[in-house]
């Protein structure tokens, strides 16, 4: 985005976005579990060009993760069953968070747990050891690959609301709830988060899927089913972001299959205030930077000054709207 203000006398687009009291330099975050804790990707990506990093889910104790096979490629996407492998919150605050503090970008700590108390304890432990660029938390209530916790919160509206209320009491930083697409309708979940005081919802997490070896009749993932991500899920993600936006008044962070700036723009138009780039990082570790740069180009060419001019700008014909679409 260098020299953009000088190019052809055009005004440089303003990519910064505000969420609560926090200003992000651009609306592109890297999604939890697709960027490690920063150190892994540092060699491959100019981290400070990102709007922020959502860190790999962290739980109270370290988790080993699931046995292989953990990943399988599918049509325009992949299934994973990592099983929340992570270093645990004590190592996270001792090693990972101080490391992340060096970067001029925002950090959002993603938390996964198997009980209300564990979610709260992890959040409070991070809160007590916060670094300056820690912007807030993303609460993973939507991991399909662990037996305990995860989805059992994310598929129950009451538990979603109860958990959000509990965590809201423990932090003034951004509290973002990550929703699952594996429900009949995402709308009541987004509304529950809003009622309970969440600052934003992020969606979608992966879709439950499976793949089978037809010669051995065995599932190709160790846990039989796993989470589907990548470009294959983008249309589903867009529809769910659109539904969440219509259902609630808090910001929506959209993700699911974003690999290009054009993908991101679709999410903004559907109603996302910010986006996360996930699986694409596995192909290009600097995918998030590519999306942010591409977004600046797109806005410049389309003469769009602010990201907010794009957000929720879907044009649905009046008669369709009247008919409930």
């Amino acid at each position, binding site marked *: 985005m260098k020299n953009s203000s000088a190019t052809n006398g055009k005004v440089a687009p303003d990519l910064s976005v505000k969420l609560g009291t926090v200003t992000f330099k651009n609306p592109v975050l890297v999604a939890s579990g697709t960027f490690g804790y920063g150190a892994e990707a540092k*060699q491959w990506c100019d981290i400070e060009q990102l709007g922020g990093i959502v860190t790999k889910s962290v739980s109270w104790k370290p988790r080993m993760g699931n046995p292989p096979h953990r990943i399988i*490629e599918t049509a325009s996407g992949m299934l994973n069953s990592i099983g929340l492998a992570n270093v645990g919150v004590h190592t996270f605050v001792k090693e990972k968070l101080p490391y992340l503090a060096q970067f001029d970008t925002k950090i959002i700590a993603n938390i996964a747990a198997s009980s209300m108390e564990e979610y709260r304890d992890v959040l409070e432990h991070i809160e007590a050891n916060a670094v300056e660029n820690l912007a807030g938390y993303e609460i993973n209530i939507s991991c399909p690959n662990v037996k305990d916790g995860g989805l059992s919160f994310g598929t129950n509206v009451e538990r979603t609301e109860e958990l959000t209320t509990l965590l809201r009491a423990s932090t003034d930083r951004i509290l973002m709830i990550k929703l699952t697409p594996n429900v009949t309708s995402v709308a009541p979940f987004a509304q529950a988060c809003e009622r309970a005081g969440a600052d934003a919802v992020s969606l979608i997490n992966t879709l439950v899927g499976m793949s089978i070896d037809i010669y051995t009749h065995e599932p190709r993932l160790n846990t039989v089913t796993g989470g589907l991500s990548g470009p294959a899920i983008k249309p589903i993600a867009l529809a769910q972001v659109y539904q969440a936006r219509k259902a609630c008044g808090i910001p929506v962070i959209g993700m699911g299959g974003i690999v290009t700036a054009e993908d991101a723009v679709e999410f903004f138009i559907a109603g996302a205030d910010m986006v996360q780039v996930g*699986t694409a990082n*596995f192909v290009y*570790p600097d995918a998030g930077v590519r999306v942010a740069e591409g977004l600046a180009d797109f806005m410049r060419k389309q003469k769009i000054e602010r990201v907010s001019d794009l957000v929720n700008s879907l044009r649905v014909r009046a008669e369709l709207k009247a008919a409930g679409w």
Partner: protein
Amino acid sequence: MADLFLSQRSLVTKRRVIAPGLVTLRFQNPRIARETLAGQFVNVLPKVGFGDPMLRRPFSVYWSEGDEAEIIVQAHGRGTGILAETREGEELDVLGPLGKPWMYQSADYETAILLIGGVGVASMPMLTRALELEEISFQTFYGARTASLIARDRLSNLHIATDDGSEGFHGSNVMLLRTFLEKDGIEKPKIFACGPTAMMRAAQSLAAEFGIPCELSLETEMACGIGICQGCPVRNEESIFEQSGRRFRLVCTEGPSFNAKEIVL
């Protein structure tokens, strides 16, 4: 950010067919050509840009010379099928070098045994060159289904075993190696093995039986290749788990080669 290691489009300058579905691709990439050590790998996109297939495929670097490096590709699925059809003048998108090299500089042996199964040959020409430079003696035991599938370039001191008896020893390369070890014909050996899981397990138990150090270079499903996705775990042997508290290690960043005693296949 000049110090960033971004993936690079790399022009394919030479495609050579070794056998049906088995090709080598030579591509221009000065950094990979100059920096790769024997046993390291690159992660290659079947097509430039995002598409389907989406993920990169990991390949050991097969050879390097000047500004060019080579991989050897066996077509066995959609991604490798597309890669194997890459033509001279087309581009690959390559990330690397990745992973750790073979630990051939360890002091625990005098003769290297290169144990190759099929396309597990991928890292062996580079290892052969490294051993020759270090003046370490070595013997190569190459097992293949049939003689026409043997990629014998740049290998030396070759003992061949084929499943169908079309060349060399009729049987597995591990069986052939056993006959050498039983005759006590190899001075203070260490095994460097790469091949199908069955061969790797056989190498593991042979090494244990004869009390020989053994390193296994693993091939697994892999997405990122740089330690982010956690998709390529290998199970630690129980004593390693007890020492480290870690059930798994990652093939991409902690391997691809491991001490055979420390992992469970």
